[in-house]
Every structure is written in C-alpha cells, then in structure tokens.
C-alpha cells in the first residue's frame, strides 16, 4: 500500500507536466481532483467600491466555484449525503480611482470532468466577494452570482469604527444591510461598500 503511494507520488508530477495540465486543485472530495479549464471563454468583470476611513492594505476578489449537478457526485455510504466539490479562487483587483477597483474572472475557470463515473460534473460560479484588509481587520462583502447579475451593484455598510479596531482582528468586520435600523439611524457612523458583476468581452 505504502509503495503504491510512493510510486504514485513520484509519477504524478511527471505525468502532470507531460500532459501540460495545471496542478490538481483540491475540491473537497477525495475522489476528485479539479483542474483549470485551459480555454475559458465566459469572462466577467467585478467592480468594487468603498469609502473606508483609511486605505486598504490589500484588496482582491474571491470567487466561489461549486459543482452544480449533484447527480454526478456519489452518496456517502450510510449517511446519504454528498461531499459536493467546491473551491475558491483569488482574483487580483486593480485600482481605478480612490474608491473603485476592478477585476476579471472566468465563470468557466474550472474544467468540467466526470470524476466519479456518474456523468460529467458541471462547475459554475455561485459566489462573488471582495476581500480587503485595513489595519489588520478583514472586511468582506459580496453575494450570490445570480443575484449580482440580476441586481448590481449590491450595497453593504460597515461601521467606520470597525476600521482599525484591534478586537476585530481575529474575527473580521460585519457588514450591514442598507435597511438595517442601526444604519438608518446613524448613517454617519457607517461607510458604504458596493460590488457589481457583469459580463465582459472574452
């Protein structure tokens, strides 16, 4: 058994290199190894704005990919549930102006594959988020792709006091809905952050 593993470990990188494939992606199911689609065409643009009280130390988009047809994934014995394959990819965001950033992702970045001999598993983007750090505190905002395509931009608010609050360093800052009573009562205490997603030319 161990010998087999060693042999597999030794051969795998060569096989991958020979095939010219990308390194396998852990997709959360032992029976499946994800690969990047070598010829993606469904290109999308993500636009983020924010009016934080200070600069972001880092900003990126985080794209959530899921297999969307459960029939291609086996049931876990006895439990009768599934380890649905999923992963997340970082996308760089480029500054447009003091309050706007832009990035691009491919909706078909993951290669559809028949991992389990139950039919081809189809990947899609389900979630698009913006992830920033300001003075050590993580801020995240975003939403489900179908909602963002239907109704962009999506608006969130953050407490201005969350920026630079050391107690939030381990946890991150919470976003608030525009209709949140606290936001409506004290709008000056909050700053605005938005995200929009739309199709882009390939």
């Amino acid at each position, binding site marked *: 058994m161990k010998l087999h593993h060693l042999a597999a470990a030794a051969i795998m990188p060569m096989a991958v290199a020979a095939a010219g494939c990308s390194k396998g992606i*852990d997709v*959360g*199911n032992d029976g499946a190894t994800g690969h990047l689609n070598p010829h993606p065409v469904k290109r999308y643009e993500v636009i983020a704005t924010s009016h934080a009280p200070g600069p972001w130390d880092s900003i990126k988009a*985080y794209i*959530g990919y899921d297999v969307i047809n*459960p029939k291609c994934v086996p*049931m*876990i*014995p*006895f*439990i*009768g*549930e*599934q*380890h*649905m394959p*999923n*992963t*997340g990819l*970082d996308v760089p965001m480029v500054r447009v102006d003091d309050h706007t950033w832009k990035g691009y992702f491919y909706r078909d970045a993951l290669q559809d594959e028949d991992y389990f001999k139950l039919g081809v598993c189809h990947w899609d983007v*389900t*979630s698009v*988020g*913006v*992830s920033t750090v300001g003075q050590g505190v*993580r*801020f*995240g*905002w*975003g*939403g*489900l792709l179908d*909602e963002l395509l239907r109704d962009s931009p999506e608006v*969130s608010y953050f407490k201005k006091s969350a920026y630079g609050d050391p*107690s*939030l360093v*381990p*946890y*991150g*800052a*919470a*976003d*608030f*809905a525009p*209709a*949140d009573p606290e936001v409506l009562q004290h709008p000056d205490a909050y700053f605005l952050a938005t995200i929009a997603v739309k199709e882009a030319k390939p």
Partner: protein
Amino acid sequence: MKPIAQALADAANDSYANRPQSDVDNNSKYVSLDGQKYQVFGYANDPTTGFHATAYRNRDTKEVIIAYRGTDPGLFAGETKAEKVGHALTTLQDIAVDAKMVRDNINAQKPAADAFTEQMIAKAAAQGIPKDHVFAAGHSLGGAHAEREAARYGLRGSTYNGFGAADLIDGPPQPGCQLTNYRMAGDVVSAASPHIGEVVSLASQDDLQSGAGFASATGRAAYDLGERVASAAREAGAYGAAVIPWSRWRCVATAGHGLAGPIGTSNSGSTGSLA
C-alpha cells in the same frame, strides 16, 4: 415548519461540503440557504476525530447557524476501505439495537464540537450578534451534536432524522435551549435514542412534501437509503411500531422558573405531527 427551519435544514445539508479554509479567511464566500444569502462564517475540520461543522451568517436577519455534520461511525471501524464499507452497512442495522459505537464516536468529537460552538458564539458576539440569534442544526449523527451543543450553550435549533442526545449531555439543558427534532416515521437513527426537546414525526411522503425543510435535509438521504433503512428497521422490529422517541429532557425557550430537568424516563416529551 418554523420560519428558519428551512434554512437550518439547508445548512445541515450544506455542512457535508468540505470547504477550503479560504472560504472563512476571506470573509466573502456566500451560499444560498432557503433562497437567502448566507456568509460562510466558520468551518471546523478535526482530522483526528472526523468532526466537521460549518457556520453561516445572514447579514439581513443577523442570525448565525452552526451546522454539525454527521459522521459515519463505520468509517472509524475498519482498516481497509472494503472493511469500512462492510462495517458501515452492519452499523446501520446495529444502530437500532446497540448505539454504543455511535455514542463512542460522538463522545470522541465532543471537545472539538464544544470548541467550535464557543468560537462561533464569540465571533458572533464580536460582530454584535447575541447568542439568542445563534442556531444549531444537524442531520443524522450531526443532529446529536446539534442537540448537545444547543443544550450545553442554550441555543435554539433543529435536527433532521437526528440521533437523540438526551443520554449524551453532561448536565441539564441551559436556558435559551429550544429544539425541534424532525424525523421521518420508520427512521431508525432518530428512533434509537431519546431526544432533547420537541419531536415532530412526519408520517408520510405527503408530510415530507409539506415539510419542505425536512425534505431538503433528509429527503435525498431518505430516497437513497430508503430501502436499506426500511430493511434495517424491519430487522430491528421498529418498522410499523410506534417509534416515537420520548424526550427525557425538556428544552425550553425561556428559562422561566429555572433550568429544565429530568422529567421521567418513559414519556412526557412533547411530540407533534406536521400533518
């Protein structure tokens, strides 16, 4: 179904996905539960005991759901994959008559489950979400964790064909604990052990359809396992019998006059039917 029951059922279902840690670290991964946007709020993966759980936060309602994943006790019993599969099948039939293996499995995961619950309550509090907005959910053996954690930390929650945890708690349920345990008639796992809180039995496929939340968490499982569960239940003599697991502990929303306590060993649990 209570308003959040559908989201709790969907969370119990979603918690079977293995997640990359980046989902939590980036603070910007979202899933749809009951058609609403939830942020992935926390994820636990303890390789030693096989414990997994995922927490979700709804921005608009300021509610957090902690969903505990059920583990197959058979996965810990065999050396080879073939043995494991063999064990899983016999375990299923053993559950109705001897739940020791299940209890050992859950007991081994208690420290990891407690630690995750405490972390999520602390994270929620840091973001301004009080404990009475934190819910526990779980399917199958994950239901036992959900019951235990709700009792221990005084949370609301629901389980779906869950394994009853009344024998697995270290003390009386804490104030704030309120549990609804949805189960399908004939299901052996949820009939194997007494529950904490209210038990709602769904008798038929019609009930399943009217209880969409339940169907979402366990419908697929029930569909897939229907015949195996049914045959195991028949062997155990449970099928067709009055398999209503009586609750040994009450678990109430408001503390009122004090802690819940033991209220007998045979009945007094509140049961209901969705039909």
